[in-house]
């Protein structure tokens, strides 16, 4: 009997051991067995919302700005329906209280039994080291930048880009340096410019005109065959094979008249003219419609107009493919660091202008963007100055590089030519950073 009692005692002891060990071996709730990585999901959600800096822009807006509601809609839209969230934005301050909540919103009363969070630091645009550039022409009657962004024209030798995308990039790069930047949206507006009509109250004189259409130039319909101003754009009697060479002559005249700096960003300047409506059924022989071939005579006619010579058709080549590999000039290289623009120092030139144009058209090389190779200038700014005169009457920036264009070279060339100064301002430390915390929980269950 004693043995049986002893065994019962042993059973009681083992039962006690089992109960005690079971109390310590607490198994997790089903949700924790195979958890979704909520902190990572929260972080990637915030990064997605800030993919185009929308989140950074929104969190610095006033509390009653509609952007907050849009942020909440976007957040609700991108998370799975079984997730609840709480988004809180904190102001980062110095002093005793480092983080002060300034705004929060949620899609639930509470975040369930457990939640995870991720934080994301956003910076306002003021946090960067601020540099204020001197505006070109702020001390004179100039300072307008025209960028040809005509929707009714096609480009050539800008492969991989559209003229409009290049125009956008150029505006971003150069508009801080000019008093006014005008995007010329169509050829009608270009026609107004040619007629000395201001588009937005800007100063037309001494402006810079960037042709983003590569080897092609937009032409207003009025200057085309059968329209009112055809005599200034179309002249088959002088050049039967390339009648629109006349338009390039007009451009040269206007450049001289208004003392513009005409900018050609790539290739042979003024090799085609384009107007999608007027040349609806004409192509450049390579399948790009809305375009007419001008050929070699275009740049010669432009320079004739610039130099106030009589218009004649001259198809003698002034651009050559001899240079091949070319290098940035030392002047322009020095400006790379100053303006923070770093294109490759060596490029390929297949349309370098000949030095012969300097004497033929009273030009002066004001800035060599690339080093000269023999009698070829791969890229430069030419000032037109009449003999025995000192005043500049029109300039030409021509980059005779092969396609595809790098518009940073255009920007750098212009900045090196005008040389606007940069004024650095103070680093603004207060109120420049905000912390966004996204807390996620799973709805329902235990």
């Amino acid at each position, binding site marked *: *009997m*004693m*043995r*049986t009692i*002893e*065994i*019962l005692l*042993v*059973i009681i002891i*083992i*039962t006690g051991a*089992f109960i005690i*060990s*079971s109390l310590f*071996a607490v*198994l*997790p709730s089903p949700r924790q*067995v*195979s*958890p*979704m*990585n909520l902190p*990572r*999901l929260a972080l*990637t*959600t915030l*990064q*997605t*919302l*800030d*993919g*185009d800096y*929308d*989140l950074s822009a*929104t969190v610095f807006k006033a509390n009653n700005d509609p*952007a907050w509601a*849009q942020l909440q*809609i*976007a*957040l*609700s*839209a*991108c*998370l*799975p*329906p079984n997730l609840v969230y709480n988004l809180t934005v904190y102001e980062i301050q110095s002093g005793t209280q480092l983080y002060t909540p300034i705004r929060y919103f949620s899609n639930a009363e509470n975040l369930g039994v457990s939640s995870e969070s991720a934080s994301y630091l956003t910076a306002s645009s003021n946090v960067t080291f601020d540099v204020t550039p001197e505006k070109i022409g702020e001390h004179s009657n100039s300072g307008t930048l025209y960028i040809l962004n005509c929707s009714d024209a*096609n*480009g050539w030798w800008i*492969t*991989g*880009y*559209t003229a*409009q*995308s290049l125009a*956008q990039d150029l505006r971003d790069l150069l508009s801080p340096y000019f008093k006014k930047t005008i995007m010329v949206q169509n050829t009608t507006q270009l026609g107004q410019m040619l007629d000395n009509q201001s588009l937005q109250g800007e100063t037309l004189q001494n402006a810079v005109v960037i042709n983003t259409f590569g080897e092609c130039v937009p032409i207003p319909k009025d200057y085309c065959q059968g329209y009112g101003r055809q005599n200034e754009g179309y002249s088959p009697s002088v050049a039967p094979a390339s009648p629109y060479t006349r338009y390039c002559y007009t451009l040269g005249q206007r450049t001289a008249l208004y003392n513009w700096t005409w900018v050609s960003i790539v290739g042979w300047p003024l090799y085609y003219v384009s107007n999608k409506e007027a040349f609806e059924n004409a*192509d450049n022989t*390579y*399948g*790009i*419609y809305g375009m007419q071939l001008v050929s070699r005579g275009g740049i010669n006619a432009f320079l004739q107009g610039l130099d106030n010579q009589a218009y004649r058709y001259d198809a003698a080549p002034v651009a050559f493919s001899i240079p091949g590999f070319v290098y940035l000039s030392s002047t322009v290289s020095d400006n790379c660091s100053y303006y923070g623009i770093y294109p490759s120092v060596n490029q390929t030139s297949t349309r370098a202008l000949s030095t012969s144009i300097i004497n033929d058209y009273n030009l002066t090389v004001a800035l060599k963007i690339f080093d000269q190779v023999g009698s070829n200038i791969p890229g430069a700014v030419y000032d037109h100055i009449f003999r025995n005169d000192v005043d500049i009457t029109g300039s030409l920036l021509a980059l005779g590089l092969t396609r595809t264009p790098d518009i940073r070279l255009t920007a750098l060339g212009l900045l090196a030519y005008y040389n606007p100064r940069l004024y650095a301002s103070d680093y603004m430390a207060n109120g420049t950073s905000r912390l966004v915390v996204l807390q996620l929980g799973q709805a329902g269950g235990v």
Partner: protein
Amino acid sequence: MAGSTIDHLVSLTIFLAAILLFISLFNQTIQTAILYQQHRHLATVCSDLLDNIMLNPGYPLNWSKTNSTLTSFGLQDPEFTQYRLSPYSLMRLQSLTGIPFTYPRTGVTYSNMSMGFGNFLFVPYTKAINYSTAAQLLGTTNTYGFNLTIAPIVTVSVKETHAANPLTIVVNVAGPGFPLSNAEVSYCFLKVVDKGGQKNPSYTSLFSTTYADGTGSAVINMTNVDADNAYVFIAYAHMSGLVGIGYHERNIGSKKYVLPLIDSFEDRRVLLVHSYNVHDEGPPESSVFFNATFVLLTEDFTLREMPMEDSTGKLGKVVYGQGTDKTWANLTIPTFNPGILIATYQTNNEYGVVLMPWGLSSMAFPVTFGTTADKPEWVVTDIRQVLVNGIAYQAKLSLWSLKGYGVIG
């Protein structure tokens, strides 16, 4: 003496029974704990593997744009950091869900990522990464099986509610949890101008922007569109960092058309083939003439047409037979910027337009890559929000162990 023996026998029996019972009970507890640990470990591996795929561009870095042999697997866009994936790497994943097909004229088999008629994406198997290669490069062969789904977060559905004059199109924008109220909708409308029979078609295009209402819906009316006009409508919706894409085509006829097949990523070359060569519907059949163009999404979320030169092969025709005419045409995409190849086509009595994304995100195509689980004991999933060329996607990885679960058996 007998009483003592009985006492021993009873006590020993009870003792052995109790020991067996307690061993079983302890074993149960230990098994549950070990299974928990294994499942927890699997969840950790899943999260790590997903990060490994998303935060690593692979090697060579530009493998998705070249013919290089892949030596390290990853989908991150090499030009960015964080969770931004390359639209070209995603194109080169062998689709698990699409039914592959072999083009009889060349004998090449294609991975099929198409999203219904008119929205095609075919990548040669020889250019696509298969599951076993990816598993080997990730070190999961014979240890884990996985399935990766990358799908757009924002759904932009485009429906035609009135056929002609005006053509009425309704665009609905929503995420998985909520409609995107007041989203900005940028759209491209391209109408095929049927020139009758054996000529290359032409097209007219219109680009514009509108806004969705409070329910995420936008109604767009198009004038000068007849019921027998073929067209394509592509819409990009954008709000607070979320971008989505939707499209809709109307084709006249559905038998004779051109089909785009990617031929070379490095050379950006696409083959346009006659549909009868794919479906083998039998000769004789008339040539299909085409006229292609390319549109891309700019940084300001508007669509822009990029004109193509003749040398790209944008104009041409393809035939069914094996005569002197071409049974396929070569077309070169003009850029490595992601966009949409739009090929308008016409033959004697059928005409329309087909689309192909250049970069998976351009048309918000989803992709499922990996293998299917064969009765796994436990499958874990993890998700990340990612950007593919600015388009918001969700990446979901399902992972299971191939080692069995010996603790139970």
